[in-house]
């Protein structure tokens, strides 16, 4: 936590991190109400890693998972690692300019989805026996029946919801950054007004593409 941005008062940081963590938790509640097969439990992390820096994003992720442990069940604590690595990808990604325009933002979303899923798969396989208790389990069963190894099936199914989730998360984070007071967003350079209809088409296209590619790879590798 070395890089306290000079012009943001420390009390602001002390409050912004918990608010972002609470948004992470409540995001999960909103997608539940709206019946969506994504999680949106890392938007706050993304915003903080852009506004305050990657390591503050890591802290947000850890705080989020501590809160989830006390609100839902401590068995989800290992997923703090996923939230933390996401913060690093987004934070450093924005530093090297990957949040600047639409195509780069899309790229950042895809990269973060792959990194975060790579982090999540070992946890799912070793602690949860490959199960997530979510929508992705249906796809896991399909891939298993196609002859995939457990970890391949878990990765292939979870990357689908993760892609939708993380691409959506970075674009929502951009919209949220625009709504922040100027004092907080002077440091970040993000895309202007992402075209959300295009984002939706991109997500649907990428998810279907990856699902088919995974299926193809599994079938040919047998």
């Amino acid at each position, binding site marked *: 936590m070395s890089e306290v941005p000079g012009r943001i008062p420390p009390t602001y940081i002390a409050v912004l991190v918990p608010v972002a963590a609470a*948004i992470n938790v409540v995001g999960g509640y909103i997608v539940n109400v709206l019946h969506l097969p994504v999680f949106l439990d890392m938007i706050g992390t993304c915003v903080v890693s852009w506004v305050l820096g990657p390591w503050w994003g890591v802290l947000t992720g850890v705080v989020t998972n501590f809160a989830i442990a006390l609100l839902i069940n401590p068995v989800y604590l290992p997923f703090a690692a996923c939230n933390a690595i996401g913060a690093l990808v987004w934070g450093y990604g924005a530093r090297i300019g990957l949040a600047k325009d639409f195509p780069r933002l899309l790229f950042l979303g895809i990269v973060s989805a792959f990194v975060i899923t790579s982090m999540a798969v070992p946890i799912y396989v070793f602690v949860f026996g490959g199960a997530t208790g979510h929508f992705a389990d249906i796809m896991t069963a399909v891939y298993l029946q196609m002859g995939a190894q457990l970890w391949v099936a878990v990765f292939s199914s979870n990357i689908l919801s993760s892609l939708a989730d993380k691409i959506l998360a970075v674009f929502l984070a951009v919209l949220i950054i625009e709504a922040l007071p100027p004092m907080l967003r002077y440091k970040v350079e993000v895309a202007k007004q992402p075209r959300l209809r295009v984002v939706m088409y991109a997500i649907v296209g990428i998810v279907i593409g990856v699902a088919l590619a995974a299926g193809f790879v599994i079938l040919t590798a047998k």
Partner: protein
Amino acid sequence: MSTRATLYTPGQSFLHKLNPLTKMVILLALLVIIFPLMNPFILFALAGVAVLLAIAAGVFRDFVQGMSILIPAAFAMAFFQTFWPAIPPPHRPILSIGLLTAYHEGLYYGLVFAGRILAMGAFALLIVQVTHPVDLFVSLLKIGVPYMLGFMTLVTLQLVPILMREASTIIQAQQSRGMKARGLTAIIPSMIPLFASSMERVQQLAMSLEARAFGSSGKKTSLREMRMRGVDYAVVVVTVAATAAAVLYFNQHGWFNYLRTYTFPLSLAVALIALVTIGFVGMAAYFLARLAG
């Protein structure tokens, strides 16, 4: 969804009165035993012990609610392993349903996974239920966990129910303006107002912290004081000794791993496979139905 702050359920039981650090030691000891155990019967029995303790501590109702979240995952892991065991062959088949074949090793391994997550989840949930979050962080402070981490987590816990209420108000307000309450297009009109109002809250909270000299360098004190009492030390010693003995005992018996040798009686196997399959298919149908609307 409940708007209660945390899982903590007030009470006066023995478990409630233990120091949070003592409870962390107990939880760690249980993890050390539960994780390597390869016997579904022992694991489910341990989960049963957690249920009994929850009843004894008077937190059973919320305990059931908390555990219900783990049930779909438990069904899914048992289902995956039963039909596609993630262990090297040979696999001894039990029966075939259409394209799927269930195996003894798979059913055994699946039940190990389900039993393990249920046992770990049950004990962890129980400990969280009988520990006040503030007490937990005051105690963790003493063993070197940074103050900021505890402070931020506690603020988050305070904010979640507030933002939860706000989110449902926003969704209802948008619905009354004709927003379709499902699908990706509904995310933006729900999320953005929530964030905007949270930012207002950030400013208010920051000001009130400033007014209370949050940034001052003096020693922070807490309203609630935690002390290790004699009984805490006694419990820690007994826990550590019992865990060491249990590890030695289980290790001598190969952690009761009968994966390769255990053969389920046919009626039990059929009942378990039916339960697991119905559970998983039911979960899948539920998710698909929700997605379709």
